[in-house]
C-alpha cells in the first residue's frame, strides 16, 4: 500500500496551531506517511512534528468554512489545528485517522526511520540473556539456561532462552508447560545474592475444576526451595477471581499438592478496569473548570492511585518474603504477562541496587517486560483518549513506570536516572521511531525481523549526549533495600506526566536547573580545591 493513497491533501496553507503554553502560530501543514508537520515558514522552523502513531483520537468541528481538528495524543497532549476550507479539513482529518491506525506493523515508522546519529553500541545486542546468566552462574550452579523454546514452540510468549533449575530437564519443562496457561512454565526472575532466595514467575496452573495436578510442576517449583525451606506463592488475583478461573480451566496451586508453599492472594486489577482508570484520571486532569471538591472526587473515582498502591503493596510483599522472611517466591496471575511482571520488576527495583542504575533499569525492562512477553503492541495500542472499546488496551507498563516514579520520589538519591527517563520510556512505549516496543513478544519480534529492520531505542538512548539528559545529579549508589511507603498520604499524582500539558512548569524547571548548577559548581570548587 502506498501512503499517498491515504493522503488526499498533502499540504494546506494558513493553518493555525494552538498548543498549551505557546502562542498560536500560523503556518503550512504538511502530511507525510508518518508525520504531521506544521511549519510557520518565516524562519523555516517546524513548529510541530508529530508522529501519526502518537495520535490517540481526533475530533473535527466546523464553523462556516473554517474547520478545526482537535488532536489528542497518546502522550496526553492535546493540540488544535484551525484549517481553512471544509474539504481540506475533511481530507486532512480522514488521512490522519487512517494513518494513525495502520493495521500492519511493518508500515509503522520504525521500519522507515533512518537514524541521523552514529550508532556506537547496537541496543539489540546490549542485553543478552547469556550475558545476564554469566553473572548468576558465578554465584550459584543451581540454575541453567534452557534453549527448549528456541523455536517458540513450547511457549509462544517466552523468549528462546530461559533460566530454570539445573535439576529439571527439558522433558519435564515440556510437561510443565502443558500445565500452565499459555505454556508459561515457572522460570527464574530474580536471584537474591544476599541470601540465595529467588523470585520465579509463571502463569496460572491449569488445575480446572477437577483439581488436576502435574508432578513435574510440583518438582520444578520445589526445586527452587532449599531443603526444609518453605516458599510463598503470591497470586496477583483475589481468591475469588482465582477460584472462578477454575471454571475456565485455570486455577491455583492446591495446598495439598504444594505443601511447602503458602499461597497469598492480592488483588491487582487488569485490562479495561485499568484503561478506564487512566481515561478517568486524564479527563479529571484536563478539566480546569473543576472546583476543589469535584477535582478530589474525580481523582478518587479514577482509582489510579489505588492501583498504584495495590501494585506497590504486592511488590513490597514479595520483597518482604525474600529479604525479611528468607523465603523464595513464585508470582503469577492469570497469563503471567501483566500484573505478574509489574510485581516482579518492582520487587527487583526495591531489592537490587543494580536495577536502579540506567543500564540496570534498561536490562530490567528488557528482561522482565520485553523478553518476558508483555504484549506491548496490544496494551499500548491506545492511550487515555481512546473511545473504541477494545479489550486489550491497558496501561500496565505505564502503571509500572508510575510506581517507579513513586519510589524515585521517596528515594531521590538512590536512582541513577531521573524523572525524564521514565517519561521518555512512557512516550516510546506508546509511539516511537524505534522498534523496541513493537510486537507482543519475542516470537513476533523475531518474525518481524526488528533487529535487522529497525533501530533499538537503547542504541539511541545510551549515547552519552542523550544519556546526559536522563542522569540524576543526586545519584549516589545505595546498596540497601529501599522500602517505599505505600500509605495514601505518601503517594502522589505523577505531575510530570498528568499535568505536563495542563500547567506551566517554568518555575519548577528553573529550580531544577538551579539544583544542577549548585551541584556542578560544587564539583568545580572541589576540583579547584584539590589543585592546591
Amino acid at each position, binding site marked *: 500500500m502506498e501512503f499517498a493513497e491515504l493522503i488526499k491533501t498533502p499540504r494546506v496553507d494558513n493553518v493555525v496551531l494552538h498548543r498549551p503554553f505557546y502562542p498560536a502560530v500560523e503556518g503550512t501543514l504538511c502530511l507525510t506517511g508518518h508525520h504531521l508537520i506544521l511549519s510557520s515558514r518565516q524562519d523555516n522552523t517546524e513548529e510541530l512534528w508529530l508522529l501519526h502513531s502518537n495520535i490517540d483520537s481526533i475530533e473535527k468541528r466546523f464553523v462556516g468554512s473554517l474547520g478545526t481538528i482537535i488532536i489528542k495524543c497518546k502522550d496526553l497532549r492535546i493540540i488544535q489545528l484551525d484549517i481553512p476550507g471544509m474539504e481540506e479539513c475533511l481530507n486532512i482529518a480522514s488521512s490522519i485517522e487512517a494513518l494513525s491506525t495502520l493495521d500492519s506493523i511493518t508500515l509503522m515508522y520504525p521500519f522507515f526511520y533512518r537514524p541521523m546519529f552514529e550508532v556506537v553500541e547496537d541496543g539489540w545486542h546490549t542485553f543478552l540473556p547469556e550475558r545476564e546468566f554469566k553473572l548468576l552462574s558465578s554465584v550459584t550452579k543451581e540454575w541453567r539456561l534452557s534453549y527448549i523454546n528456541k523455536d517458540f514452540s513450547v511457549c509462544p510468549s517466552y523468549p528462546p532462552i530461559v533460566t530454570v533449575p539445573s535439576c529439571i530437564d527439558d522433558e519435564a519443562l515440556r510437561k510443565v508447560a502443558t500445565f500452565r496457561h499459555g505454556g508459561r512454565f515457572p522460570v527464574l526472575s530474580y536471584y537474591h545474592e544476599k541470601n540465595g532466595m529467588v523470585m520465579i514467575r509463571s502463569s496460572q496452573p491449569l488445575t480446572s475444576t477437577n483439581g488436576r495436578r502435574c508432578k513435574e510442576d510440583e518438582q520444578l517449583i520445589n526445586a527452587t526451595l532449599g531443603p526444609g525451606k518453605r516458599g510463598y506463592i503470591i497470586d496477583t488475583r483475589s481468591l475469588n477471581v482465582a477460584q472462578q478461573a477454575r471454571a475456565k480451566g485455570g486455577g491455583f496451586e492446591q495446598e495439598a499438592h504444594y505443601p511447602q508453599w503458602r499461597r497469598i492472594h492480592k488483588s491487582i486489577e487488569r485490562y479495561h478496569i485499568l484503561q478506564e482508570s487512566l481515561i478517568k484520571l486524564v479527563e479529571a486532569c484536563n478539566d480546569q473548570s473543576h472546583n476543589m471538591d469535584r477535582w478530589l472526587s474525580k481523582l478518587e473515582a479514577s482509582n489510579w492511585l489505588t492501583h498504584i498502591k495495590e501494585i506497590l503493596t504486592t511488590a513490597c510483599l514479595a520483597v518482604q518474603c525474600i529479604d525479611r522472611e528468607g523465603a523464595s517466591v513464585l508470582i503469577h496471575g492469570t497469563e503471567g504477562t501483566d500484573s505478574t511482571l509489574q510485581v516482579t520488576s518492582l520487587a527487583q527495583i526495591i531489592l537490587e541496587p543494580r536495577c536502579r542504575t540506567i543500564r540496570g533499569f534498561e536490562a530490567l525492562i528488557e528482561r522482565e517486560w520485553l523478553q518476558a512477553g508483555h504484549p506491548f503492541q496490544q496494551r499500548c495500542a491506545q492511550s487515555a483518549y481512546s473511545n473504541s472499546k477494545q479489550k486489550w488496551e491497558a496501561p500496565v507498563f505505564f502503571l509500572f513506570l508510575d510506581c517507579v516514579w513513586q519510589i524515585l520520589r521517596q528515594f531521590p538519591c538512590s536512582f541513577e536516572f531521573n524523572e525524564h527517563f521514565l517519561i521518555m520510556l512512557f512516550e516510546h512505549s506508546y509511539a516511537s521511531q524505534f522498534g523496541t516496543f513493537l510486537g507482543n513478544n519475542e516470537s513476533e519480534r523475531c518474525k518481524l525481523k526488528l533487529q535487522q529492520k529497525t533501530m533499538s531505542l537503547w542504541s539511541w538512548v545510551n549515547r552519552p549526549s542523550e544519556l546526559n539528559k536522563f542522569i540524576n545529579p543526586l545519584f549516589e549508589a545505595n546498596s540497601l533495600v529501599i*522500602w517505599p511507603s505505600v*500509605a495514601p498520604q505518601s503517594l502522589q499524582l505523577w505531575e510530570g506526566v498528568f*499535568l505536563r500539558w495542563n500547567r506551566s512548569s517554568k*518555575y519548577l524547571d528553573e529550580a531544577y536547573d*538551579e*539544583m544542577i548548577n*549548585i551541584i556542578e559548581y560544587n564539583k568545580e*570548587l572541589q576540583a579547584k*580545591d584539590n589543585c592546591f
Partner: protein
Amino acid sequence: MLSTHISLEDTPTLYSAPSSSTKRSYIWRLKVEQVKLLDRFSTSNKSLTGTLYLTATHLLFIDSLQKETWILHHHIAAVEKLALTTAGCPLVIQCKNFRIVHFIVPRERDCHDIYNSLLQLSRQAKYEDLYAFSYNPKQNESEQIQGWQLIDLAEEYRRMDVPNLNWKLSDANRDYKICETYPRDLYVPRAANKPTIVGSSKFRSKGRFPVLSYYHQDKQAAICRCSQPLSGFSARCLEDEHMLQAINKANPSNRYMYVMDTRPKLNAMANRAAGKGYENEDNYSNIRFQFVGIENIHVMRTSLQKLLEVNGTKGLSVSDFFSGLESSGWLRHIKAVLDAAIFLAKAIVNESASVLVHCSDGWDRTSQVCSLGTLLLDSYYRTIKGFMVLIEKDWISFGHKFSDRCGHLDGDPKEVSPVFTQFLECVWHLTEQFPQAFEYNEAFLLQIHEHVHSCQFGNFLGNCQKEREDLKLREKTYSLWPFLLDDQEKYLNPFYTPSSQKFTVLEPNTVPFNFKFWRNMYHQFDRTLHPRQSVFKLIMNKNDQNKQLEKEIKELESKIKQQKTRHTDTVLTKESLHCIHADSPALKPSLCFKKEQTLLPVNDAIRTIEGSNTADNRYSEYAEEFSKTEPAVVSLEYGVARMTC
C-alpha cells in the same frame, strides 16, 4: 511524690535554646517504667518499651534504645484514656503540632496518675503559668531587650515610605482608648481627622476602624483593614463614609477603591440582623464591593478535625483518603484564602486601586488575606526577616487572637481555630509553586507553627498588644525571632534567587490540581510516611559546602599572591606549588592551615539516608538505621489471613 533527677545528654532540642546542648538534669515528678509506645500506623501493633517521665514542662519517653521523645505539655491538645486491654491501659495524646502518641501503661493506677497530671499540666488557667515565664535561654537583659527590638514596625512602615504625603501616623489610639485590640501606632490617610476616626470606630465592630496595613509605593495604592460596619439593614455613618473617602483620595492613581468582605455573602447578610453587616455601595462613593467567601473559624476548626480524623485511620485506603480530603473541605478553604489574596494583589497591581479588607472582627480572615496579599506583592516578605515582620504586623500587632485560637489557656474550645495554620499552609503552597522565590524553607514554617503553640516565647501569648503590655511580656519573656535568626542556616532555601526588583508579583495558579495535602505539617512526626532521602537537605549541604570552599579558595589564592610578591623572582604556578612548598618553609603553615580546616560536615549520613543529621532537631528522631524502618507495607500475617479464607 518524691522528685528525682534524670540526666540527659541532650536537651529537648526543639523547645530549648539552640545554644546549649550540654548535659543537664531535669527534675521529674512522675516516672513510670515498662510503658509501651505504639507505632501509630503499624497494622501489626509494633511498639517500643521504655520509661515515661513527667517534668514540670515536658513529657519524656526514653525507649530501650535510649531514644528520647519529648513532648511539651503546652503542645498537648487532648489526652484520652482508652478502655483497658490485656496489655495494659492505653493512653492517647494528641498534640497541637499534629503529633499523636499512643502509650500503653501496664498498671491502670499509673495510667490514671499520668492522665490526671497531664490534664493539669497541659491546661493552664493563667498566662503566668505558661512556659515562657519560666523559660530561661541564658540571655542577659540587654540581649533580651535587643531581641524584642529586632522587629520594629515603625521602621517597616518607613520602608514602605509611610508616613508620606498622603498617609500619616495617628496618635488617636496611643492609650488604647479607641480600640483595645489595635496597636498604639496606627497609620491613616492624612485627610482623616480625629472626629472621623472616632466616628468611624464607633460604627465598626469592636472599634476596629479602617487603618493602613500595607502601602504599595509603586502604585501608590494601599491595603487597609478593619472590621465589619454596624450597618444593620439601613444604618449609616458619615464619619465612616468620610474615612473610606479619605482612603480613596489618598490614592491619586485611581478614583475607585475596592471593599473586600472576606466572608460568604450569606454570613454577611445574616450579620445584618444583629446590627452588623456590610457596606452599602449606595452610601459610599466610588467603592466596588466584593464578597470572597472564606468560611468562619468554626467551619475551619471542624474541617481540620475531620481531616485529622481521616488521616489517623490505620490502613487507610487511597479512596478513603481522597474522599476524606474532599469531605473535610480543607483544601477548598485553603484555595479560598489564596484566591482572596490573589484578588487583592490583582486590584493593586492591575488597577492601582486601594483595597479595604474586612471580615467580621477583622482579625482572622482579614489577617490571612492582608498578609498573603502583601506576600504576593512585595518580595521583602519572602525573606526570613521580612516574614517575621509580616507576622508581627498583620497578625500579632493587629490583634489576631493567638491565645484564644491556639488554646494557650484553658478556655472556650469554640474559640480555637487553625486560622494561622492555614496562613502557613498557603505560604507553603506558594513555596511549592515558586521554589526560588522564598528565602526561607518549609522547616521555617514548621518551626514557627511549633512555637505559635509552644508558649515558650512571648511573641504569640495574649490576644492583642494591650494584653501583652499588661503581661509585661517584653520584660518577663523572650522573643522567638532572634533565636530563629541565629539558626537561620537551617531555614534557608538553597534554591532562593532574590528577585532584582522589590515588586516582583507572584501569580500563583489556583486550579485545584495545584493543591496538595501538606504531609510534612500534618504528619510531621509520622516518619514512615515521608521520603527517606531529602533533596532539600542535600542541596542545602552542597550550598554550605560551596560557601566554605569559596572562602577557602579565596584565602589560599591570596596567600599564594602574598608568596608571589615575596618571591618576586620565582614564577609561581599551581603546578610548581608543590616544589615551592618543599623548599619554602614560610609557605608551609599556610597550606597546612587548609588541611586542618575541616570541611563542612557533608557526610555520608546525609547523603545516603534521610534525617540522620541529628543537628536538625525536627527530624532527629528519625535517626534510625534506615533499612530497619518498616514502611506502611503489608503485613505478611494479613496476607496469610486472607489466604485461609
